[in-house]
């Protein structure tokens, strides 16, 4: 027996078991994989949503399964897909769209959009989030836990440095100037406080995309089969980042760890940091000083990538299960729930209507920083996403880290990254 047959056999057994159950219970069971990528009691919130939905829809049982980080969740979801029994619904990175399409693991949402009401719902999301959810005229993902990059600044340290604590930097030049004023060095030349910090471990491409968008470059086309890493704008953006550390010495040298960056900010080791809006609740709870949140400073123009996770529908689920999953997705993205989710987690609410709800108005009255992410969305671009996404972004990540650690100049580093991406993507055109 070969492996495929064996897996097929297992899947058939599992499938027949799964089919036998609804026939007895007269209900659709909706398995649902989700990752946790930020702090906070996310699992409790999701369980509460599932319970709330079941109450209103007695025929459907929702089974949320916490599946680890984003990376672990897609590994589990795709492995389950290959063995025949994937979850009906999963929350995965919006950038995994092309990978999931190529694996034929998901179906588009379009067949479920039937009524006028459905159409209105689909067009209710921020267009910035839909860029990563649609390709080839079809909608493959529905935005759920989405984020964007923003600048956090420490008002106390601004005051100490003689800056207006209410005014964040608006341009690249100002950002550098402020950072120079905010960097403190002792007599021996050791830095006790850095001006600015842009994390570069793990997925530096995401934060870097803020810089490239501001430099007027777009990293990949909408079809996801061509990158533009060697664009002069991209090199200029990288040069700016490298100069912050190596020339101006206002940014820590080498690779800055993503995970400890908020901690550096709390410890006052850095006065300004770039990180996700998903950290809002975390910073609010842990910063022992007044802080501000601002849209990223503009280069040629303002801009930031979006990020985070979308809902995807499994191709191998039965039509009844898909229909139930669609119902759940519609239910959980209503303005009231999107607003509550945003307030509880710090993620950006996915529809403009959510910002008009009472719950959201109350939340932002108390915490106006939460509005910054929304205000940045009009200039936000799709997060870098291509076919063979992880391999193509790794080429960029390696180039960025080589430049930031000083082993390559920005120009050659980006040229190498582009050559590697080109080699991988050639066969998709």
């Amino acid at each position, binding site marked *: 027996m070969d*492996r495929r047959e064996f897996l097929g056999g297992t899947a058939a057994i599992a499938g027949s078991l799964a089919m036998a159950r609804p026939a007895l219970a007269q209900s659709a069971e909706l398995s649902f994989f989700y990752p946790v990528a930020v702090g906070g009691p996310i699992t409790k919130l999701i369980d509460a949503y599932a319970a709330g939905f079941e109450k209103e829809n007695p025929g459907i049982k929702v089974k949320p399964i916490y599946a680890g980080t984003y990376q672990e969740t897609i590994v589990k979801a795709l492995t389950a897909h290959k063995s025949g029994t994937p979850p009906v619904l999963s929350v995965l990175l919006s950038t995994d769209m092309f990978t999931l399409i190529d694996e034929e693991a998901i179906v588009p949402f379009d067949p479920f959009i039937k009524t006028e009401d459905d159409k209105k719902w689909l067009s209710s999301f921020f267009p910035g989030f839909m860029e990563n959810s649609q390709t080839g005229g079809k909608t493959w993902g529905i935005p759920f836990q989405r984020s964007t990059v923003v600048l956090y600044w420490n008002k106390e340290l601004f005051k100490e440095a003689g800056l207006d604590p209410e005014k964040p930097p608006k341009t690249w030049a100002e950002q550098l100037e402020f950072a120079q004023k905010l960097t403190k060095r002792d007599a021996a030349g050791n830095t006790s406080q850095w001006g600015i910090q842009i994390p570069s*471990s793990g997925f530096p491409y995401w934060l870097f995309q803020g810089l490239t968008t501001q430099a007027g470059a777009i990293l990949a086309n909408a079809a996801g089969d061509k990158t533009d890493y060697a664009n002069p704008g991209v090199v200029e953006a990288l040069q700016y980042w490298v100069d912050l550390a190596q020339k101006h010495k206002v940014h820590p040298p*080498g690779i800055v*760890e993503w995970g400890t960056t908020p901690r550096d900010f709390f*410890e006052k080791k850095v006065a300004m940091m770039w990180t996700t809006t998903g950290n809002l609740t975390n910073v609010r709870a842990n910063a022992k000083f007044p802080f501000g949140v601002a849209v990223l400073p503009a280069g040629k123009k303002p801009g930031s990538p979006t990020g985070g996770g979308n809902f995807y529908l499994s191709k191998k689920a039965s039509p009844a299960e898909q229909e139930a999953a669609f119902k759940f997705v519609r239910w959980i993205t209503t303005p009231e729930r999107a607003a509550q989710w945003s307030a509880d987690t710090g993620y950006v609410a996915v529809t403009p209507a959510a910002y008009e709800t009472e719950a959201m108005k109350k939340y932002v009255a108390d915490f106006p920083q939460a509005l910054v992410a929304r205000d940045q969305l009009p200039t936000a671009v799709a997060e870098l996403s291509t076919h063979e996404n*992880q391999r193509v972004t790794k080429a960029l990540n*390696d*180039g960025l880290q080589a430049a930031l*650690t000083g082993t390559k100049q920005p120009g050659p580093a980006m040229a190498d990254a582009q050559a590697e991406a080109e080699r991988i993507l050639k066969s998709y055109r």
Partner: protein
Amino acid sequence: MTNRATATIHGWLLLLPAMACLALFTHWPAVASFIDSFMSTPRARRPARFVGLDNYEQMLADPIFWKAMANNLWFAMGTIPASIALALLMAVWVNDRIAGRTLVRMAYFTPTILPMIAVANIWLFFFTPQYGLLEQIVGAFGGRSTNWLGSQDTALYAVTIVAIWKEAGFFMIFYLAALQAIPPSLGEAAAIEGASRWTFFRRVQFPLLMPTTLFVLINAVINAFRMVDHIFVMTRGGPDNATTLLLFYIYQVGFGFWDTAYAAALTCVLLALLALVAFVQYGWLERRTHYQ
């Protein structure tokens, strides 16, 4: 049926559960990986087909593979001798009758029982620039601040040190057990002859520990290629692949890029490498090992 046939069937039946488990979860995956390494990666519309040595040619041309190999060799050269030497030193020390011996033994063994992911998170803060433990110590002596994990020059050393720290205690236990099996009369005889502590160790203890050393060495070699958990937490292979080890790269290719055929080819290389090392160790070292 004769008695003998019944006995044979009984024997096989008793072996069957263990054999089935081994075959299903160890032998078959290894064979399947070997077969898959000559196929292309199956995609939704393009089923796997035979591609011969394509995956291996790709490997020869892949700079990250060579980087991972080189990193792994440095990692092995760093972890194996250091962790064994440290384990031996600790074992000889806590074998003596010193005050608080149990406490020291426990302390040495603690790193082994802690989960690697938790340990890596703790070490992440040790290595953190500016306010990390290491920085504070260096700073107290007036040293300069270093970004241990964020620089290509130091990142591999940093993850190597974590591995040594994690392993030494485990190997110590084996040495300790072996030391206690050495008859005390040998020590008494050496004392009567007036042998120094060092001579006793070099001429008596160390040769008698050779079987243990061989066992520990094999384990250390396997671990040098197997221990990658802390890489996920501490560096994710960065900066620019400076800490990418072979197994980490296999995971990345297999479950990040979903290029399962290439991952299978990489796995075969890893298996071949380990088989070669084990062969050398058993064939060559064992002949020089003195068993009691």
